[in-house]
């Protein structure tokens, strides 16, 4: 509290000082303090991923930053994904805003439209010419850039090497028919003895997976026509994708159809799943007892680029993060510099080492093809992002897609009806700022 008051008075003092300087002439003309002299706080809101998976990167970047600005105190505060945005909303409306915020790439558009973020100059950042489209597009509007790509993840197929071998398969599937054949073998070998065994794990509300099938079939979640967005899930191509997804689920998944993939590692860790579609780190999580996995399964998972029914790779959703500077931040230049250090070439190398994909295509080639993340890097080139519509965040948060999929998966509605109902709901919110 005392600290708070002193900060408050310090701020007041600075304001008075500034006013008096302005009184003497133009404040702008005054010589800016040198880097070593600048003091104050730089508040950075990162999500917990950095804390869990690359805390050392945060430490080194802060140390580098403090070498240049010894008197600036960098305060990194970690946020939860689920509750982050209501906090950001409140903070952005207030006076004291964080100087850097991490945003999911499907969340940024709405904030940019509403003027929450300051522009950044891409030229100041490493590899900005090769930034992944999936991240870069979500940062750009009307030719300006409002955030900096941070990292990305792509989903791949993950299978139990031991189970596949027991079923008489010695390599990962490369085509869709091959995939189905392998799943048939798994089902035959293990499904008969254990009625809880799923050859393929695909919970009914897993929309990132289902939408990959929609994309593969040439469909879209929403399209922009004459300046307005419309849901496009009931288009013939989209419906074909949804049907392909549904038939895969019907044939090889025996579990609960109204669940989402939130506890996928825990379920897979129970040992009754042959293959699943997920992020590369989920293979590791399925063997980590702290996320509900089983350590005994260690070394029994491998990843593969997931083939789609179209004959090409199933296009994965590129879920990623970006870093933005709130327009109300008073240290935008410093925030920019910190982001620059946190996303530069060396930092991206650290992220690759943590089994994530980098923010640019140049370094995507550095991802070892044979490693667990190789298939993800391979699939990432066909990756997609959610529609860059102002109301997309609302579409996600009102659970339109999962609810549609649940209705389809449980057979409550036909694919066509469910998709049409979802389109109506999407139309209701997608154009709202």
């Amino acid at each position: 509290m005392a600290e708070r008051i002193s900060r408050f008075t310090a701020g007041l003092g600075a304001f008075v000082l500034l006013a008096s300087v302005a009184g003497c002439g133009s404040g702008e003309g005054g010589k800016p303090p040198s880097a070593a002299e600048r003091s104050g706080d730089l508040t950075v809101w990162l999500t917990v991923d950095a804390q869990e998976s690359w805390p050392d990167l945060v430490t080194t970047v802060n140390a580098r930053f403090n070498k240049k600005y010894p008197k600036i105190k960098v305060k990194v505060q970690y946020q939860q994904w689920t509750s982050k945005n209501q906090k950001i909303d409140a903070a952005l409306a207030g006076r004291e805003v964080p100087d850097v915020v991490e945003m999911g790439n499907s969340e940024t558009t709405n904030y940019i439209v509403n003027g929450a973020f300051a522009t950044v100059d891409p030229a100041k950042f490493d590899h900005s010419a090769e930034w992944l489209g999936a991240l870069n597009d979500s940062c750009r509007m009307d030719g300006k850039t409002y955030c900096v790509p941070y990292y990305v993840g792509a989903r791949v197929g993950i299978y139990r090497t031991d189970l596949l071998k027991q079923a008489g398969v010695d390599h990962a599937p490369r085509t869709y028919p091959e995939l189905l054949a392998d799943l048939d073998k798994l089902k035959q070998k293990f499904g008969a003895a254990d009625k809880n065994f799923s050859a393929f794990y695909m919970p009914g509300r897993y929309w990132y997976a289902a939408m990959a099938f929609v994309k593969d079939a040439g469909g879209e979640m929403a399209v922009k026509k004459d300046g307005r967005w419309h849901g496009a899930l009931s288009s013939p191509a989209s419906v074909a994708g949804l049907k392909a997804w549904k038939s895969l689920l019907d044939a090889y998944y025996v579990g609960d159809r109204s669940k989402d993939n939130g506890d996928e590692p825990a379920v897979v860790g129970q040992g009754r799943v042959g293959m699943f579609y997920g992020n590369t780190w989920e293979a590791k999580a399925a063997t980590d007892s702290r996320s509900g996995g089983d350590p005994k399964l260690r070394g029994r998972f491998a990843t593969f680029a997931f083939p789609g029914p179209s004959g090409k790779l199933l296009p994965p959703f590129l879920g990623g993060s970006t870093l933005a500077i709130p327009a109300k931040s008073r240290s935008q230049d410093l925030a920019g510099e910190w982001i620059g250090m946190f996303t530069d070439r060396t930092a991206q190398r650290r992220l690759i080492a943590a089994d994530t994909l980098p923010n640019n295509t140049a370094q995507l080639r550095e991802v070892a093809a044979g490693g667990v993340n190789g298939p993800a890097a391979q699939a990432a080139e066909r990756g997609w992002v959610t529609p860059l519509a102002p109301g997309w965040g609302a579409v996600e948060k009102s659970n339109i897609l999962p609810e549609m999929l649940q209705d389809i998966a449980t057979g409550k509605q036909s694919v066509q009806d469910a998709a049409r109902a979802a389109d109506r709901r999407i139309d209701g919110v997608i154009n709202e700022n």
Partner: protein
Amino acid sequence: MNNAPGPWPTAPPGRRARPRTRHRRAVANTLGLVFSAVMAFPIYWMLLTAVRPAEEIHHSPPKFWPGHLTLEHFRRALDTPTFWANVRASVLIGVGTVLVSLLIGTLAAFALARFSFAGRKAFVLVILGVQMIPLAGLIIPIYLLLSDAGLTDSLLGVILTYLVFMLPFTVWLLRGFIAGIPAELEEAARVDGCTRLGAFRRVLLPLLAPGLVATSIYALVQAWNEYVLAYVLLSSNDKQTLSIWLVSFQTSFGTDYGGLMAGATLTALPVAVFFAIVQRRVATGLTAGAVKG
């Protein structure tokens, strides 16, 4: 004055020797134990998860008894870098909220219980109405207000916010306790030469002690477990309360149930201990003993 027969009244005398009554008591005991077992099961599950090794946690079929005991989850919970800072924040916020709301709540409750004054109805309505407002609509306005006052990311801001949500309840509860103390006792003290304040302190306050204790528990439990407001108002990780700290066990990799349950045990412990210490007073049946004695 607290010479009431123990915390809970014993069964009315004159009925205990009969065999039928003994039979009835056996039935009552059984019912009580069954109820306790059902209610306690989730707590048992929490403790069980906190002390069993990770590989047993998700075992299928479930095991209801730990194969091995381990402290690894507690160790992991205690090793979180911010744990002790979070304890400190929780204690400061809890104690601060409880003390201030008791202090000013008692005054208002006294006014409500002892005086008839213009505007009393309106006051009662406000007290009642405040508890009905859904929190969701207030989060941003409260944040903006505290932001203007420079009280975001400050424990004082959270205490103030909790205070207004706790006060109505506190006032309402304490009003009942005060109304239960006959005003004649104060009158008598004042006839004996006490000032109004003296009468309040020497007569009312001791009689009110159980009421204050009970109210403090209600307030403490609320302040200790609140999550939404604290999360929005506090952004520094080392100023956050234990209830926010607990959420950090739900990672994007899945829920670390072992760590979460160990953390939950640690979080609930202080409240349970506090209650255990003061429960006699709560249950003493307020002023009944004094009035009759």
